[in-house]
């Protein structure tokens, strides 16, 4: 058994409803696993339980096959990067990085070597004697990373580490993190509510809602084969268009049991011609808003079936007015009344 395993984990605070109930989760060793979900879905709580900062109410957590019951956070061989960096304000960059090593009695020459290596990796060598308050947000984040790297942990835990940075810096540190993960080859568990971070960095995404895993898989599979409405609408920007069956024109053929139909904005084609071929869906609507974003454009149409978003990479600008939005049959998704995906033939989409 390698990686991280959660078996029947439950977490509740006081006598309140549990925030996490009977959770089973497997996080592969050496992967970059993203815990993704809206705020309040319990993703940070899961991370904190893995770190040992919060005790699970019930269930078991294993790291590389070892039961973590009663193991203190410091003894779990993990490192964590916090959203607000949590740097020790009275210590210099070097002391911040060194603190954990001193506590586990790493001899000084080895400490120096490891610190040198870590600060080089994050590009902080010249700031080593500064205090955190004299560093920018991005630099602080790098110190937090160096502090984690230097411990050579089995598992890196990151709790929304990029959310306090501006967009440009976020993009830059995202690629740095991918590189870091490839260089170190250890398990990364990363909590975020941002699907861009999840899709760009993750090798495995665990999508959570109300403390439950809604879908787990590679970014590709989560995007192309959503197992439920929640996943379909959480991933993708803009999210998948969903049209309730009762709002569809009588002519459209749906699989048995389908309660709604979905398609991604990027798979929709805008045309002036509404003739639908076999298996193709077509909706007539009025273009009410458009966002031209350089390499792509996002359009919002008002139709009799509800609002529809489309995304075009063609560079052709669609003028305001009446249009047809068409989607090929292979790009259509169907969901039953519970929100679970079903196939064209009406079977469950496994």
């Amino acid at each position, binding site marked *: 058994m390698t990686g991280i395993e959660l078996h029947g984990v439950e977490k509740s605070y006081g006598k309140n409803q549990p925030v996490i109930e009977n959770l089973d989760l497997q996080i592969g060793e050496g992967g970059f696993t993203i815990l993704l979900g809206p705020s309040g879905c319990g993703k940070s709580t899961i991370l904190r339980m893995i*770190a040992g*900062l919060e005790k699970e109410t019930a269930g078991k957590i294993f790291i590389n096959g070892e039961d973590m019951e009663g193991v*203190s*956070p*410091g*003894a779990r061989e*993990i*490192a*964590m990067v*916090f*959203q*607000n960096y*949590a*740097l*020790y*304000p*009275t*210590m210099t960059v070097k002391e911040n990085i060194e*603190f*954990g090593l001193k*506590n*586990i009695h790493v001899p000084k020459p080895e400490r120096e070597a490891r610190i040198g290596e870590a600060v080089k990796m994050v590009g902080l060598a010249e700031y080593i004697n500064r205090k*955190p*308050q004299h560093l920018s947000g991005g630099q602080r984040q790098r110190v937090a990373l160096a*502090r984690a790297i230097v*411990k050579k942990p089995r598992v890196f835990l990151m709790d929304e580490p990029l959310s306090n940075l501006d967009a440009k810096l976020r993009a830059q540190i995202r690629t740095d993190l991918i590189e870091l993960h490839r260089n170190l080859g250890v398990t990364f568990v990363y909590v975020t509510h941002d699907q861009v971070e999840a899709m760009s960095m993750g090798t495995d995404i665990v999508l959570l809602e109300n403390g439950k895993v809604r879908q787990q898989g590679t970014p590709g599979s989560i995007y192309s084969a959503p197992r439920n409405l929640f996943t379909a609408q959480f991933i993708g920007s803009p999210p998948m268009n969903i049209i309730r069956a009762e709002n569809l024109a009588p002519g459209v053929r749906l699989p048995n049991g389908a309660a709604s139909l979905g398609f991604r904005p990027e798979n929709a084609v805008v045309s002036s011609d509404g003739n639908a071929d076999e298996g193709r869906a077509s909706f007539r609507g009025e273009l009410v808003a458009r966002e031209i974003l350089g390499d792509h454009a996002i359009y919002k149409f008002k139709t009799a079936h509800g609002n529809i978003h489309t995304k075009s990479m063609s560079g052709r600008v669609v003028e305001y007015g009446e249009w047809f939005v068409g989607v090929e049959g292979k790009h259509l998704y169907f969901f039953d009344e519970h929100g679970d995906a079903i196939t064209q033939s009406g079977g469950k989409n496994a």
Partner: protein
Amino acid sequence: MQAAAVFRKTFGTACRIAVNLLIFAIFFIPFYWMFLTAIKNLGQTLQTPPVFWVSKPHWENFSKVFAAIPFFHMLKNNLIMTFGIMICQFFTVIPAAYAFARFRFAGSGFLFGLTLATMMIPAQLVFLPLFLMFSRMGLINSYASLILPWATSSFAIFMLRQTFKQVPRELIEAAKLDSASEWKIIFKLMLPIAKPTIVTLGLITFILNWNDYFWPFVLTTNNAVRTLPVGITSLNIVDGGVKYHILMAGNLLLVAPVLVAFFFAQKQIIKAFTYMGGK
């Protein structure tokens, strides 16, 4: 228009300087008057109208202080009492404040409330029972009787608890992940962060106890452990009649260490009141 703006600016600056001068005068004049009186002779202290400058300072007033009371003995007592209290408070206040800030235990809210409530009890109410208690224990005229009643401070516990509570939870969690023990978290993380508050509290304790008159006066019947404020007050009645100049020379010697302490700690004090945490 421009002339009006210039006038407004000049007038504003002038007002600000005037107010600053007034505040300065309020704080400075008593010290100046003390110093001036300390170098006058008896005649000058009683002169009407009072003189605000002495051309021939009487430095011998200070040696009269040393002659009138066992100054260095009392200074030693003062130092033992003040630093004894500060050391005791260091060991009682920090753990209590840390526990109240960081741990939830049975009755923690009640105990903290009780600690705060002790601030509301007037000193006049407790000094008699305390005196009786110390006298029954045979501790009158001992350092213990001067130190023990102030061995902890609910005000300091409250202040330090607030400072500890301001430390972001993640900092402590990061330290735990860095394998730091609870003691290490206290000494390497929390105390350095709380340093400005601790220095300020230390200074307040120092000033309060260094200048304390009432308790040392009540708890001592001879000069064995009497402190300077008690001794300085006794200068009042040297050779009969009030000798203001000797009294003020003694007072000047008494407050000098406080001024020196404040001078060295002022940076930390300002920090303590502006510190916003490590974000």
